[in-house]
């Protein structure tokens, strides 16, 4: 069961919101402008097959989920008030929060949840991430009353609330005129995919409201433009900035930063089912050539922590008791020699889409050269990269999201995200156990065990856990650190004064 300290939190939040509102009604309409890299494939409805920073920024304002991860990584209730399983964990009863209003003025009910889940699960709608909730049987969603739904699952599943907390599974409703409406803190005014979304605050929002009236999300074509717009004062908040730009940005007295952990970061990945990487000595050598401190300092500008080749550094659970790998060129050379793989020649591909990817690739190539491994870095455009996704033997991959959903999706066999083709019997067993337990302490123990296996055998070479840096203008106040990098798009209690 999920701890339910929620009512108190809501009361506090509502009080805070009222104070903000009363102090603010006298001021004129304030607008916050967010700059993000735009994606022209974005849609208004939240089950777009494409996930992007610009779509995420929009959805976070328009829609809510049944559950969510809070800024410290714990699962909290949102549109749901409680989620209760039966003894065998294959029937879950979801009670909805009462008096939640939709943007079209109607109440949000069980019918909306059922319609949303059915839409997500329908293969015709190309909502690919629905594989993460494949335990749900869309034909067995039963409405008990307006605020209660019973989910009968295909198999026992303990991480029900965690799965629905993933920010892909937002709830929507269809208005009478056929348009898609949400329940989030902002209503949509206008939208041009990849370029601009204009929103106004939803005054009947059930949660803590933002301290400003209007929000504009501008989609830029590249990171450079976002940074320039921030420095030139055209946007108030940048969704992301390159790590190497941070020193220049912090010199500007009008710019401020919030630094927090993040669950989204790049790592090196090799196909463990393909030579030469299927040789554990080669894999170990590739993990030993990295100068992790240099990656932290030079690829991430010092805004990172040294990592130890496993994902999910930000779970609330203790890290596995494995020794920290450090650069050991002699050992790496020896291992390569034992494997008969001296003079390795490799091609490392990346689409360079995420801050730090190109930098890490270049530094790694340089470091590996010391052990006689010749690495050629190749940057591809996204379509060429995706075209051979899961085929590239050596690539820069990206993890994003909580361990129990995103990481498992990248390390369990048969998952589309599993680019390393990792298929480890021990790991698979533990993962199955993790998915079917509801006990938090037990979950933690399992995650730590899973991470120890990753450290030893997975094809992920994780050099650094970068931090998330949000840079904003001093006209904005109230942005909060967030473990999942949502600092720039969470506006509860945020105010603007221009």
């Amino acid at each position, binding site marked *: 069961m999920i701890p339910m300290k929620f009512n108190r939190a809501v009361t506090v939040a509502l009080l805070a919101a009222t104070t903000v509102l009363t102090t603010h009604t006298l001021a004129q309409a304030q607008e916050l402008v967010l700059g993000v890299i735009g994606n022209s494939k974005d849609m208004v409805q939240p089950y777009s097959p494409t996930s992007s920073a610009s779509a995420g920024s929009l959805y976070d304002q328009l829609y809510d989920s049944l559950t969510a991860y809070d800024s410290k990584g714990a699962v909290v209730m949102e549109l749901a008030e409680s989620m209760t399983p039966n003894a065998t964990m294959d029937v879950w009863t979801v009670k909805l929060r009462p008096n939640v209003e939709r943007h079209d003025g109607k109440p949000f009910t069980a019918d909306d949840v059922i319609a949303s889940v059915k839409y997500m699960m329908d293969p015709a709608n190309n909502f690919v991430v629905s594989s993460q909730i494949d335990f749900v049987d869309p034909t067995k969603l039963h409405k008990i009353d307006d605020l209660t739904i019973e989910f009968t699952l295909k198999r026992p599943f303990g991480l029900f609330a965690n799965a629905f907390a993933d920010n892909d599974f937002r709830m929507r409703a269809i208005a009478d005129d056929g348009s898609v409406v949400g329940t989030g803190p902002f209503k949509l005014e206008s939208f041009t995919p990849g370029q601009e979304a204009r929103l106004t605050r939803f005054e009947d929002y059930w949660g803590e409201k933002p301290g400003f009236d209007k929000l504009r999300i501008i989609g830029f074509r590249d990171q*450079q433009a976002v*940074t*320039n717009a921030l*420095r030139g004062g055209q946007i108030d908040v940048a969704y992301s900035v*390159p790590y*190497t*730009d941070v*020193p*220049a940005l912090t*010199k*500007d007295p009008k710019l401020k930063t919030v630094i927090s952990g993040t669950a989204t970061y790049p790592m090196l990945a090799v196909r463990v089912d393909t030579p030469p990487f299927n040789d554990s000595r080669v894999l170990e050598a590739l993990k030993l050539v990295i100068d992790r401190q*240099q990656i932290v*300092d*030079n*690829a991430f*500008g*010092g805004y990172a922590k040294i990592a130890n080749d496993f994902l999910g550094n930000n779970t609330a659970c203790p890290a596995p008791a494995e020794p920290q790998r450090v650069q050991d060129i002699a050992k790496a050379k020896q291992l390569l020699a034992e494997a008969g793989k001296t003079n390795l020649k490799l091609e490392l591909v990346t689409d*360079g889409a995420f801050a730090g990817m*190109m*930098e890490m690739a*270049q*530094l790694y*190539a*340089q470091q590996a050269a010391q052990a006689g491994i010749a690495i050629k*870095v*190749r*940057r*591809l*455009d996204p*379509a*060429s990269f995706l075209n051979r996704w899961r085929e590239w033997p050596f690539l820069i991959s990206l993890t994003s999201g909580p361990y129990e959903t995103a990481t498992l999706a990248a390390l369990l066999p048969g998952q589309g995200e599993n680019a390393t083709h990792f298929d480890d019997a021990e790991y698979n067993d533990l993962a199955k156990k993790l998915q079917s337990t509801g006990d938090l302490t037990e979950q933690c123990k399992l995650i730590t065990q899973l991470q120890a296996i990753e450290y030893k055998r997975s094809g992920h070479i994780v050099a650094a856990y970068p931090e998330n840096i949000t840079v904003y203008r001093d006209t904005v106040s109230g942005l909060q650190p967030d473990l999942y990098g949502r600092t720039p798009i969470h506006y509860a209690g945020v105010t603007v004064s221009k």
Partner: protein
Amino acid sequence: MELTVVLRRRFRPRPVGWWRLWASVQVRWGVVLLVAMTALIAIGPLLAPYDPAAPVGRPYVSPSADAWLGTDNLGRDVLSRVLCGGVYLAWMAPISALLSVTIGTAIALVAAYRGGWVDLALMRSLDVLLAFPGVLLTLLCVSVFGPQPLLLVGLIVLTLMPGVARVIRGAALPLLNREYVLWAKAVGTPGLVIILRELLPNVSSPLLVELGLRLSWSVGILSSMSFIGYGIQPPAADWGLMVSENGSGLGAQPFAALAPIVMIVFYTIGGSLIAEGAARVIARTEGKA
């Protein structure tokens, strides 16, 4: 037969010789600048104090005694990267310029001399090439084949060659009505010989203008390609790439972007000076005619 020779000598004007182009101050300075830059590029890697690919400190460190021009976005030595960063330009730009001028001139002279359908077909095919957006061509080829240097050269040639052909054809057309060409035709001189002996020498000045211009433009296109990410790939040291990598750090460490900019500008000015000088020689010659 002897008569032909005599007549030809009489009717053929003296072409603007290479020596007259060399007499131009601009041409000389241009050549000197290009030779100097090429020499610097050639010995640069020997002078570089550090490995251009290896970090020597934190990113964007200001100039110091250890790193005279500071470090770049990855903490690499800017001076070493500038010294090593012209290698690609130094061979790719001249080859692209030479090839586009050679091929363009060949097409132009054949088109002008033959006229009619040959002319129409050749020039319209070039129009197709011109109307085909260069960016798309680059994007396409680089995506399919990867950013191979020879491919980039080919792309630049395809982009620049139609322009050369148009100019040279324009310069060659009036020559067709000159007595010496008409005479050569009348006595049955083979077309190829007319093109090589009568037309080509008389377009030498516009040719040199084009060569200088296209050299400048090749450098511009090559570095622009690197700048937008479809040219020379990291971690190679390349001036255009350096501008793109360090452009956003102009406020923190201006030398990382400014140093390669200065190098690109010097190199392109070399080409421009040659074009300029040649154009002035033409203007003077025509003025006297």
